[in-house]
């Protein structure tokens, strides 16, 4: 590490996401403490941990939905600084999927998908719609394009949210508990959609407690507790032989 600490080396950074000594505070409360996380290009990370451990905060700092207080964050070599230009550059590299979908309720599915490409990528309506239809096709929902979000099931809405994010052609996808708000029978269709991204070599950081998904898809599990990363390991190792007491306790809780 020479002169690249304070200025990203652009395309030369071998990591899709690099966090160094990141802190996040809410008033007196420290939500993230000394976060160091390196995510390689094409790597798939699952973040888990007890409620309130800072998983959402961590993932939301990566695209500056939350503003980190200390430390460095790089996305594909672009340093995330607290100015609109830097924030915009980083957000163009990342896509995010939320627990509550956050589709725009007053727009049709197709409008939801073309808004950002037309306004941020300056695509023509035709090009944006072609791109959107192709991605809606991919998540098996093209026939619903003219409906409003409220007319779709939760699973369908979340698949639309994934397609909408993909319309901006992100390099890194961030998922914050994408299946937690869904009825059990809809969890599978959303997880299948997420798995289908793996083939494209998409970098994925996913907060989830779906351990089956983690075992099948993740390269690495990151376990958090009280605002710190406590343990990181490949899924086999993490699930069968967790190294820390806290991880063992956590796994006991969610398995029963």
């Amino acid at each position, binding site marked *: 590490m020479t002169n690249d600490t304070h200025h990203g080396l652009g395309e030369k950074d071998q990591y899709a996401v690099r966090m160094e000594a990141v802190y996040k505070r809410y008033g007196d409360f420290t939500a993230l403490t000394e976060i160091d996380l390196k995510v390689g290009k094409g790597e798939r990370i699952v973040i888990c941990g007890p409620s309130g451990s800072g998983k959402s905060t961590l993932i939301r700092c990566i*695209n*500056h*939905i939350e503003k980190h207080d200390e430390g460095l964050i790089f996305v594909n070599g672009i340093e995330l600084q607290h100015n609109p230009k830097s924030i*915009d550059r980083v*957000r*163009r590299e*990342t*896509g*995010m999927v*939320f627990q*509550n979908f*956050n*589709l*725009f*309720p*007053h*727009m*049709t599915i197709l409008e939801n998908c073309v*808004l*950002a490409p037309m*306004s*941020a990528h300056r695509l023509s*309506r035709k090009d944006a719609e072609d791109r959107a239809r192709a991605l809606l096709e991919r998540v098996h929902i093209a026939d619903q394009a*003219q*409906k*409003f*979000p*409220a*007319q779709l099931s939760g699973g369908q809405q979340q698949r639309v*949210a994934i397609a*909408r*994010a993909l319309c*901006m052609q992100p390099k890194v996808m*961030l998922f914050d508990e994408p299946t937690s708000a869904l009825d059990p029978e809809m969890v599978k269709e959303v997880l299948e959609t997420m798995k289908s991204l793996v083939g494209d070599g998409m970098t994925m950081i996913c907060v989830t407690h779906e351990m089956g998904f983690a075992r099948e898809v993740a390269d690495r599990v990151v376990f958090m507790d009280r605002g710190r990363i406590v343990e990181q390991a490949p899924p086999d190792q993490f699930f069968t032989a967790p190294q820390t007491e806290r991880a063992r306790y956590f796994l006991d809780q969610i398995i029963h």
Partner: protein
Amino acid sequence: MRFFDPAAFVDYLFNHFLMGGVLVTIGLTLASVAGGLVLGMIIALMRMSQNLALYGFARTYIWFFRGTPLLIQLVVIYTGLPQLGIKLGVINSALIGLILHEASYLAEIIRSGFMSVPQGQREAAWALSVPRRTIFWRVTLPQAFRLMIPPFGNSVNSLLKATSLASVISVEEIMRRSDMLMQEHFQILEVYAAAAVYYLLLVSVWDLIQQRLESHFGRSLDRNAKSTPAKRR
């Protein structure tokens, strides 16, 4: 003198002089709503601004115009401004008073509409790199607008009747013309009953419009709504 003369009442209902007043009331209301919306929007944006001066101005404005009677505001504008050399005429004085007053209410309605849009909507738009302006016009404003319609409807209803206060500075709307008719024939109940019927009619028409607005802007939330036809293909 009879207690209530139905024939006279019906006469007043179709009295052209009074109907002219109805047109003035409608005009005052529409112009005040339009002006109030523009000014109210500006005040609401100031009220939501991080800039302390803008915020302070908006707070003071709202505090003052919601805290003093419209009647006093109208009289002060009508008699006070000419002393500063500003001559406006009755209609303009009334419009200024009504707009300043209405804006203070609409500003709070607009602000609460914006605050009721879930934060997740903005976050989703940020995450998609949607430009700030587009977020305002395409994401927050339409959703805030839907939430604003019911309180906005109420406010217009109040305003419609509050225009009657402009009679005090001699604007010839429904109330003023009723007064004039009353002083001619002293058929107090008959004249004012006719005037009340006009207000009822106007308010009812507005109720209908409000219902249409509500269902129009609420249609996307209706699970059983028909899909919109494909546009511009």
